[in-house]
């Protein structure tokens, strides 16, 4: 069994690797990169050499190419910096030709300064993505010239809440593993994923932070800082990261260089927003859909069943957008807002109509399948035999048919739960919910390449692992399935 799971995990990883690599290749080669800059206002204002320089350095930042200005070339490859910087000098020409020989393209600015760039090929692009993806924090992570005496150690000490935490000096993060009152209660900063920075929307922000950081206004509370100062602040001290140049404000609050903190926000992040909606409606859909499907199968062709079939057909046939507006226009009469931001996260009424709609949308499928599986099973021989045993219809359904019919449903449950974070695009846009649903289409529209790659990675990884999880869950409910891979099978 363990062998099988390891094999499946390996296969899953390979699939994710292939999918994401293909997407990287597509994004970097097929999207016209000049368009990426067009929506950047600061770029549009620039002219001349600064514009060229800005463009190339942006391309380097976005991972398209390796770009070197004259002074970079001279610092790297010349012993005589001063001579090298003089255009047309012997040293200058020598350095330029070295780069030319390395395969770099040499171009000249209007002022005569040369610059070199090397465009990455597909394999380099893919390699760069994967080699920087997983970042493991360690005591040697920070190499700061201004702070050569930085202590390097990992230790366990009580944090400001008095709870033991794994802390580090010399790492990027101060707290590697810590506990707090927020779900899932144990947190880690040790291993993180780096998908690069978001651009041109939310320029400069870490891609993963954009979707996982809280939204709305900051929550400001009295916070006691390491130095003992109590200040009104939104800082989440557990997220402290290394800050090279600390000013005296920081010195006032912090007793070390770990002075960069994420803030606490009053509204959940995009992922969490989508997750709240997804999960609540999922639970509702299962809680209503499965009993409804069972009821329909038990009363096949009777009134209840026919009513259910009408419901299924109606919801399936109606375009989801029509359903959304239909439901919205009804519930508005009961004082429920038609847009999410009107009352916001704090008011329960904001959640009512999106949840109803998401539930309605996923119920018909569940009902159809469970009804169908139940009916399939009720015609089988073991049901006939169970009847001949003298079991009541009810016992046959609950003890025999249900367990068989639920197997294919169980297989899909992990997928539905995990993929809730994908958000529901149409519903979220109709209600202006700040969730994940709009992220992928938005970032594709805005040519936010790193975001697209990040989302593809997340969604493909989650899908593939939820299939694996679904299969493992089947092993628990269906005794016939065994995972021990026999030789020769």
């Amino acid at each position, binding site marked *: 069994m363990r062998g099988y799971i390891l094999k499946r995990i390996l296969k899953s990883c390979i699939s994710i690797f292939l999918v994401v690599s293909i997407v990287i290749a597509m994004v970097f080669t097929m999207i016209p990169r000049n368009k990426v800059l067009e929506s950047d206002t600061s770029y549009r204002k620039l002219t001349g050499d600064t514009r060229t320089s800005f463009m190339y350095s942006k391309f380097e930042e976005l991972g398209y190419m390796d770009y070197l200005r004259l002074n970079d070339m001279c610092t790297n490859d010349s012993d005589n910096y001063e001579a090298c910087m003089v255009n047309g000098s012997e040293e200058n020409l020598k350095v330029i030709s070295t780069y030319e020989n390395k395969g770099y393209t040499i171009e000249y600015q209007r002022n005569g300064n040369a610059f070199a760039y090397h465009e990455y090929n597909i394999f380099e692009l893919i390699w760069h993505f994967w080699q920087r993806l997983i970042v493991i924090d360690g005591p040697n992570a920070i190499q700061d010239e201004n702070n050569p005496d930085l202590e390097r150690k990992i230790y366990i000490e009580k944090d400001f809440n008095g709870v033991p935490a794994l802390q580090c000096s010399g790492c990027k993060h101060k707290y590697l593993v810590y506990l707090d009152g927020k779900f899932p209660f144990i947190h880690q900063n040790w291993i993180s994923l780096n998908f690069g920075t978001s651009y041109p929307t939310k320029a400069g922000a870490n891609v993963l932070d954009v979707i996982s950081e809280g939204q709305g206004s900051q929550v400001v509370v009295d916070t006691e800082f390491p130095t003992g100062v109590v200040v009104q602040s939104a800082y989440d001290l557990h997220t402290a990261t290394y800050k090279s140049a600390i000013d005296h404000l920081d010195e006032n609050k912090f007793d070390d260089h770990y002075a960069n903190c994420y803030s606490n926000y009053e509204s959940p992040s995009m992922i969490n927003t989508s997750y709240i909606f997804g999960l609540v409606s999922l639970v509702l859909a299962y809680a209503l859909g499965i009993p409804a499907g069972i009821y329909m199968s038990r009363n096949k062709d009777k009134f209840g069943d026919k009513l259910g079939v009408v419901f299924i057909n109606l919801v399936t046939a109606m375009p989801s957008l029509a359903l959304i507006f239909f439901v919205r226009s009804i519930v508005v009469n009961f004082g429920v807002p038609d847009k999410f931001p009107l009352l916001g996260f704090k008011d329960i009424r904001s959640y009512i109509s999106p949840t109803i709609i998401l539930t309605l949308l996923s119920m018909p499928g569940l009902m159809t399948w469970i009804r169908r599986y139940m009916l399939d099973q009720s015609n*089988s*021989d*073991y049901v*006939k*035999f*169970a*009847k*001949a*045993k*003298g*079991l*009541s*219809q009810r*016992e046959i359904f609950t*003890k*025999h048919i249900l*367990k*068989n019919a639920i*197997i294919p449903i169980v297989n899909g449950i992990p997928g539905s739960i995990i993929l809730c974070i994908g958000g529901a695009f149409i519903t979220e846009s109709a209600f202006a919910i700040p969730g994940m649903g709009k992220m992928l289409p938005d970032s594709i529209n805005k040519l936010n390449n790193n975001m697209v790659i990040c989302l593809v990675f997340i969604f493909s990884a989650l899908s593939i692992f939820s299939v694996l999880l679904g299969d493992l869950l089947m092993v628990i*409910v*269906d*005794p*016939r399935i065994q995972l021990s891979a026999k030789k020769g099978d």
Partner: protein
Amino acid sequence: MVNNPILSVKNLEVKFKVRDRVLTAIRNISLDFEEHKVVAIVGESGSGKTVFTKTFTGMLDINGEVTQGEVWFEGRNLMEIKDDKGWEEIRGKKIATVFQDPMTSLNPVRTIGYQISEVIMKHQGKSKEEAKKEALELMDKVGIKDPERRYDEYPFQYSGGMRQRIVIAIALACHPKILICDEPTTALDVTIQAQIIKLIKDLAKEYDFTTIYITHDLGVVANVADYVAVMYGGQIIEFGTVEDIFYDSRHPYTWGLLSSLPQLGLKGEELFAIRGTPPSLFEKIQGDAFAPRSNYSLKIDFLKEPPIFNVSDTHWAKTWLLDPRAPKVEPPLVIKTLHQRMLDMTKKGGVYGER
């Protein structure tokens, strides 16, 4: 005719609604089943064997209906039971059934132990531990080795023969008065067939139940049955002891059925087959249902349904050939020499004659 009947069927008629048409599957059957005896019901596919026995446990499909007749069991007419609740007192508890295919008769995702003890708990009101104890005993009785270990296994871990043993164990869990075996060995291979038949035979002695066999296999009939009922077109056309049917059969259909035994065929000779097809039960059948296929049909066979003619105390048949006015007809040669042929056959190694 029969002493001490445990189950008594009177004028039973069963109709099925198929789309907009009505099919008469059972046409006016009356039959008594003698206690502790083995009755075999034989006949070709579609003759109504299974439907007939399904009425004893109220297991007819939804579109089927008993339109007429009574089935008396333990002093009550079972046909008066209208809902499943009433039937639960009979099914499994008093009249148990073993179906044809053991591969699919058991729930694939429940343990064997669960499926046996479930019945015991339901019908005898025993606790889980008591039920397990009894289930283990039953498993031992039906020949499952190491029942303790196999109790928690699933059907897929059992072979076909083992599963049929379990099905029998479940059927016997509540000490039923009658066991209906609906082609219990058809899906099993020949060596296992003999074991299962012997098992049912032995258990019948021990548990004291009456057995009703439904089978195509006349070999099985010869081996286990006390009485044989031959069914054709929704009726029992001949009934008698096994000796009556094998050595002194009177109905042309029974002759045809016995002649068709492939084991009786001689090398180089063509195998016998009854010509034609069974009658459509959608239409009203006039006269003798077998008449169009029979080589011995009389004019009256096409006009009037034959009544029951008693041949002896234990033997009757529904054919006009037994009417005193009918011309004397000799049964085919195969039938007359059946005994000799069967003896010849078993000399080469068989089970006939063991009885």
